[in-house]
């Protein structure tokens, strides 16, 4: 599914280049649950953003579902993102002025799904994640765990083949975090590939394998 070859990211500074990622190479197969771990500043979130097509300033080769991402235009990368990827952010990043229903509806509207179909899909998602009663509430009216739940629902609502989760439980209590990880496990069991960034070893145990980063390098 994903093939990386010598992917690197750096910033040009006053005293030369500052590398965030160095010669990242590897593969992630479809259906895998991969955890990326490492100390702060290792480049974990950066790598995740590159995988999610959110960051276009890198070098190297990146193949995704047979598409040579490194050769694609930004507009085409966005299309690839829309087709295959769902992203869960540490800070939830729900849109404050939209209700829960509308936050779930947004990704579908950006994928030109017909409004009648969207309504059906959103209602299914609300039902699936047991948040029907929250549909008309705004994010500020939800707890952290509920917000992250909505964020996860939003990430999966378009049925992506790949979910990227950046510290999905970082701002949650342990019990809420366990709930989210159980959800990820279930999605993975259903066939969704998951790549998560986490500091938590407990969360890492939900995955099949761990990629360790340090100072921008894969160390293990």
């Amino acid at each position, binding site marked *: 599914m994903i093939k990386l070859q010598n992917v690197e990211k750096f910033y040009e500074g006053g005293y030369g280049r500052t590398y965030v990622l160095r010669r990242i190479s590897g593969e992630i197969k479809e259906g895998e649950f991969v955890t990326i771990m490492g100390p702060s500043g290792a480049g974990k979130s950066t790598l995740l953003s590159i995988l*999610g097509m959110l960051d276009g*300033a890198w070098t190297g080769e990146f193949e995704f579902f047979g598409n040579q991402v490194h050769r694609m235009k930004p507009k085409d990368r966005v299309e690839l993102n829309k087709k295959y990827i769902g992203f869960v952010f540490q800070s939830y990043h729900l849109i404050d002025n939209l209700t829960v229903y509308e936050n779930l509806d947004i990704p579908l509207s950006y994928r030109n799904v017909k409004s009648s179909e969207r309504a059906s899909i959103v209602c299914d998602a609300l039902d699936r994640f047991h948040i029907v009663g929250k549909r008309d509430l705004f994010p500020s009216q939800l707890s952290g765990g509920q917000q992250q739940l909505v964020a996860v629902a939003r990430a999966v609502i378009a049925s992506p083949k790949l979910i990227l989760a950046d510290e999905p439980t970082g701002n949650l209590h342990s019990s809420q975090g366990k709930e989210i990880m159980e959800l990820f496990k279930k999605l993975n069991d259903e066939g969704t590939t998951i790549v998560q960034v986490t500091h938590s070893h407990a969360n890492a145990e939900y995955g099949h394998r761990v990629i360790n980063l340090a100072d921008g390098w894969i160390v293990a």
Partner: protein
Amino acid sequence: MNLMGRDLRFGLRLLTKSPGFTAVALATLALGIGAATSIFSVVDAVVFKPLPFRDPDRVLTIWEKNPSLNRFRMAVAVGNFRDWSQQARTLEGIAGVYDATVNLTSGPNGRVDPEELKVERVSASLFPMLGVQPIIGRAFRPEEDRPGHGNFALLSHSLWERKFGADRSIAGKTIGLRGQPYLVVGVLPAGFAVLDPSVDVYVPLALNANDPRFAGARMLMVTARLKPGATLEQAKQEMEIIGARLELSNPAVDRGWRPNLFRIQDQLSGNVRKAMWVLLGAVSFLLLMACVNVANLLLARGAMRQKEIAIRAALGATRGRLIAQFLCESVLLSLAGGALGLALARGSVALVAAFGPASIPRLTQATVDGRLFLFALAVSALTGILFGIIPAIQGSRTNMHAALTEAGRGGTAGRAARRLRSALVVAEIALALLVLIGAGLLLRSFARLRRVDPGFRSEGVLTLRVPLGGGRNNANERRVAFFAEVSDRVAALPGVRSVGAVSALPLTGLGGGTVFWIDGRPTPPPERRPLGLTRGVTPGYFGAMGIPLIEGRFFNAADTAASQPVAIIDQALARRFWPQGGAIGGRLITDANDNVEEIVGVVGTAKPDKLEGDDWPTIYMPYSQKHDQTMILTVRTAGDPMAAASAVVRAVHAMDAEQPVADVRPMDHVVDEAVSGVRFNAVALAIFAAIAFLLAAIGIYGVISYDVTARTNEIGIRMALGAERGDVIMLVLGQGARLAAYGIAIGLLAAFGLTRLMQPMLFGVSPMDFETYAAIAALLGAVALAASYLPSRRALALDPLTALRHE
């Protein structure tokens, strides 16, 4: 459509959820669009709207000029009007117009409430020349425009509606003017006027131009049309040649005089054109400031929505989708602001049309022009749209990952946006300074004008026009007795201190005049004889008006028609011809009656026309010796002059119930009206200045306030490192002061260049008046500091720990 509907709903929700931003943005748009549309509409009506004539740009007014006498728009001598009509080849349809007043003494059905009407006596060629058709009946025929055959009347639309009930069968009926029957031949269209929109009725000129008594009388306003193919320059050249020819053939009348041609549009709006352009400039600045404010508000809000934009992009929104969403929001805001602006414009234009000064021509015809509203709306909407979608464009280009992780921390993109907003605020302050300086100069002018001594004391004086023409007291032998008796009756009323009458009030126009020379001195040739104003007055006039006696005596009961002709002159005349004094006993020879008047008194000079105008030498004659048919009673009262008004009118009607009485008003109103044009300009610009002031304050506050929010983290670090209250305040105030300093400097430079355009509008004040500039600069600086102070208080209230965690 579904997506647009959703975007509109979301936009509306955002606007309602941020009432402060929405209120400020809408108010800014409404003020900018409303003010701009109002003034655009007024200027359009006054300056640009074509007159209701056929090919109005080919219609001219022709005056006479004599540069050696400093006269450039003198009425035309009757003989010259005749000669021009016969000799000019570049003009067609030359028509003469003569203003007068006349009493309406009877209506088509007999008795009618007596009323003094404004009448224009016009050549029969006038209406065909202008291409104007009456809506009822017909215009005058050439045979009706002959002396002794001119008892025909064309009614103005307003008189027809007001006095004759819009009777569609009025043509062919007879009305009484000045006791004489006049056949109504037609009714003119609504809004028709040659130069004066207040004319009630038109009658044939019916002048005998060959009558030597009138040939040299400069009394006509002349209009003409350029012949097809002729240009104004060609007409001017031809008329110059004709004028030179007439000077040779009739030097007694025409030495030094030449025709002076103007397009009629320029004649109408020439006096106020410059003022209109200044107002237009000021309101354009205001619209620009409103756009700048809206731009700043949208940029600031857009910067705060970078995170939302990044999320939407991360969720799959394309740039086009984001732009479409923000476009919807901006259009919503612009349309709402535009609707409010339109309401404001309608109200403002209606107020101005109803209460604006009469000295501004065609002001009453001002209405909100749809094109101009759309222009102002388009400018504001484009601004809103442009600055509303900039954040969407910027956000869609930004590295999403960076935006999501650095949202709220400013970053490089944030700094660039802050610089743009600061630049906009500096521009706004500069514009505000310009408008404020303009208003300040005009207000000082107006204040100086009001301090000009008009030469009389207006407080407590009631005035009322009593036109005898056509009534039973109009006979020469009756007039003097009538006004003497009226004066006695009014003087006996409680609260009345003194009563007088005059043929023309000060500050209402030059009125009648005559050439004169001094008996016993070399007789100047006719073309060099000085012009003086003439006024018939009753003995009590000077006392009633508070015009001081400088030398000699006032008129008294001994000055009768049978006694030695006497005159009182004003100081302007006395100083000019008796600079060392000794005017008393001097003798004037006036062209009017070839009599010799002995000067028995010198009084203070009263301004005849404008407060800012020149003094004119004035010759007062006792009413017993110069009895005009229309006089204005001047009644000095103990208290509010209008409180005595009805009693005074009853006193007149007690002598003759059919006697019209018009223009009953305090003399203070006459003075007010004389300065109404200047006051209008000053008030209009002052209103703009107040709006500009407000917009500048909002702009500065908005930028500084946003900056404090954006720098919360930085402020927390500074406080954690030991910054004290004063340091934080100086940090915030310093930024506001810097913006203000740049804006004021640029504004002052611009003001030095632009305010000279206002020179014709100013009185007693230089366009570079230091006090005005300094005061306005200081005021704006103080406002900038005050607007920065509130956010600085907010910065002080921050908890350092919270600020450090802020993102």
